[in-house]
């Protein structure tokens, strides 16, 4: 497989594939961070995660239309407004869902899976009724759609860089929130001992709701970013769900760092394999390797060994 290429080409391949892998890595991180918060910290299996992402994408679509109609001069900047609104919309929906559904199901994690699956069906149909069955085209500001040549072989897409910067930014934000803020302390306290956390005066109910909301909000931002590289349609969210869960589980639920490490290893593996194999086989092999490793090491890459 290597013999087809010269040494300098191979160098370029690895550079470019490494970069493609980094973009994929950022995509995985964005997808998985929200879920890592919700699933990892709260143990809630949110099967509607993809739909929360798509809500963010639709918000971006709406904002882009509003800007195109009323503020064409500022169109280049609309994306930032869109991301904030996407966070707010998905987050608000998350708060509502937590209040109406999830809080009744904390003791039955497998049931949250079913309930949120039902929710995802409803959201899909809702998007279809509101926005139509067809995909909507989100126009991206021109400055985001170009690329920067590095050498004559290697070009770097700007939206890829944007996604990467965003992934790093959100990871940092999540990190700061989880490990530096009062809320993060409360979340971790509840994760470790719910009863005790309640006893020492943490408002567990509100912290749960906020956590779920923030997780969904992050999903919304991810969805907003994905309008640059993917499609926005009622059922597009389903495409992400398996990958997302695998990334989180592979990283070791409960560990934000693990999620990032797992996103990194899966994306690099997939991207290298994609170059030498057909895309389908690369995907199958990646999934098989992940599942295989999970069978050998079910707790994932990063999990604390605890006294039972």
């Amino acid at each position: 497989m290597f013999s087809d290429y010269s040494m300098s080409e191979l160098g370029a391949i690895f550079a470019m594939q490494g970069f493609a892998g980094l973009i994929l890595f950022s995509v995985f991180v964005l997808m998985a961070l929200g879920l890592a918060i919700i699933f990892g910290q709260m143990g809630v299996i949110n099967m509607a995660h993809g739909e929360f992402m798509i809500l963010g994408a639709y918000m971006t679509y709406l904002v882009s239309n509003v800007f195109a109609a009323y503020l064409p001069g500022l169109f280049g900047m609309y994306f930032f407004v869109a991301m904030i609104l996407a966070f707010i919309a998905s987050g608000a929906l998350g708060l509502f869902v937590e209040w109406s559904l999830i809080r009744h199901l904390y003791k039955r994690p497998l049931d949250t899976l079913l309930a949120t699956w039902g929710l995802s069906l409803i959201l899909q149909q809702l998007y279809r009724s509101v926005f139509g069955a067809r995909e909507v085209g989100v126009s991206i500001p021109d400055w985001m759609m170009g690329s920067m040549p590095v050498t004559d072989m290697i070009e770097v897409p700007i939206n890829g860089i944007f996604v990467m910067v965003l992934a790093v930014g959100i990871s940092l934000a999540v990190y700061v929130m989880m490990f530096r803020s009062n809320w993060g302390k409360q979340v971790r306290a509840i994760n470790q001992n719910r009863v005790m956390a309640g006893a020492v005066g943490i408002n567990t109910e509100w912290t749960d709701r906020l956590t779920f909301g923030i997780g969904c909000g992050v999903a919304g931002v991810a969805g907003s970013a994905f309008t640059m590289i993917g499609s926005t349609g009622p059922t597009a969210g389903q495409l992400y769900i398996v990958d997302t869960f695998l990334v989180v589980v592979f990283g070791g639920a409960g560990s934000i760092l693990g999620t990032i490490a797992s996103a990194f290893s899966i994306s690099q593996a997939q991207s290298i394999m994609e170059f030498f194999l057909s895309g389908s086989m690369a995907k199958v092999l990646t999934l098989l390797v992940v599942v295989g490793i999970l069978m050998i090491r079910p707790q994932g890459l990063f999990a604390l060994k605890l006294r039972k």
Partner: protein
Amino acid sequence: MSKTPPSKGPQGPSRRAVLAGSAALTASLFTPKSLLAQDFPTAEVNTTGLAVTDDTVTVGILHSITGTMAISETGSVQAEKLAISQINAQGGILGRKIEVIQEDGASDWPTFAEKARKLLVNDKVASVMGCWTSASRKAVLPVFEQHNGFLYYPTFYEGLEESPNVIYTGQEATQQIIAGLDWVKETKGANSFYLLGSDYIWPRTSNKIARKHIENFLGGKVVGEDYYPLGHTQFNSVINKIRLKKPDVIYAIVVGGSNVAFYKQLKAAGIDMTAEDPILLTISVTEDEILGIGGENMEGAYACMKYFQSLDNENNLAFVSAFKEMWGDDIVIGDVTQAAYLGPWLWKAAVEKAGSFDVDKVRAASPGIELTTAPEGYVKVHENHHLWSKTRVGLAKLDGQYDVVFETEELVEPDPFPEGYQ
């Protein structure tokens, strides 16, 4: 084949209001034939117990309204309803108004089979306009053959099929592929091709035909061939490969949501299709898909199919304006939508030629049916139940429409089992 005669005579179709505003349609182009129902007694035109009464005839529409395929199939449903309402406005078929029973295949092949059975067995519809994916057609095919139903199938597809119970109103693979490849070779001097597709039967079969044609007839070479799972959204790897192999043409048969991801990422990676280096030639992106992809991401690509909304002829102008009047000004019309529109008209012509709704007689009458009023221009039904049609190449513009840059001089003969391409 069982043709169970109905026990209680023809059943009244459930009357569902699907046709609205048909009177307002501009049907002037389609010269109404003044056929009166009393000239065609029900007992004579319907000997097999179909849902035909003295003043109505029922047909089925079977597409996905829900699920992942709803995106694609919506346009077909709209086109079929438009055609039916126009036919009714002209007085229907053999003096009978068409009534429609619509069923949802829900993007699920067993459901398609189930609904097809319902339409044929319970509703006794005289014909069915429907299906979009090959998988759904394959699923309903045994049902149609068993119950002797008659299906008008609108999608361009891989060929390799020729059922007595189906009229294929879209192009089969060779019709769509060969003319486009010849064109890109002749006018652009293209020699090397990178074949790319979603991983399922249509892209794979189409690329197989393309490869044979490129290697055996054009003397060109295929420098890469790649498939990604349906719904895949990350194409940076294949874009890197393309950049490395430097083909003259990227031949892309990506479908669905993957399409959007592919073209956006292609553009973002700095491959400017308007520069034609490389040229992008696709057979899977109609105007419908561009809506989702965005005209700015598609500009400069070439598509090869039989119909584009921008076709400049009287039939098409009337069709487009009627379509917009019925379904709204924002709507776009793609190749499959137009092909779906042909279904009811072809059926009407065949029924009138046969003077009967009986499936066997309609089938016998079908080959040789000509339609001069088709938006794509003149079409004719071949012995093998596919259509003779012209193939065109369109250049995608910023506004999401195609400029037709090439059109075959003659109708291309359909060849679902092409010799030398197997």
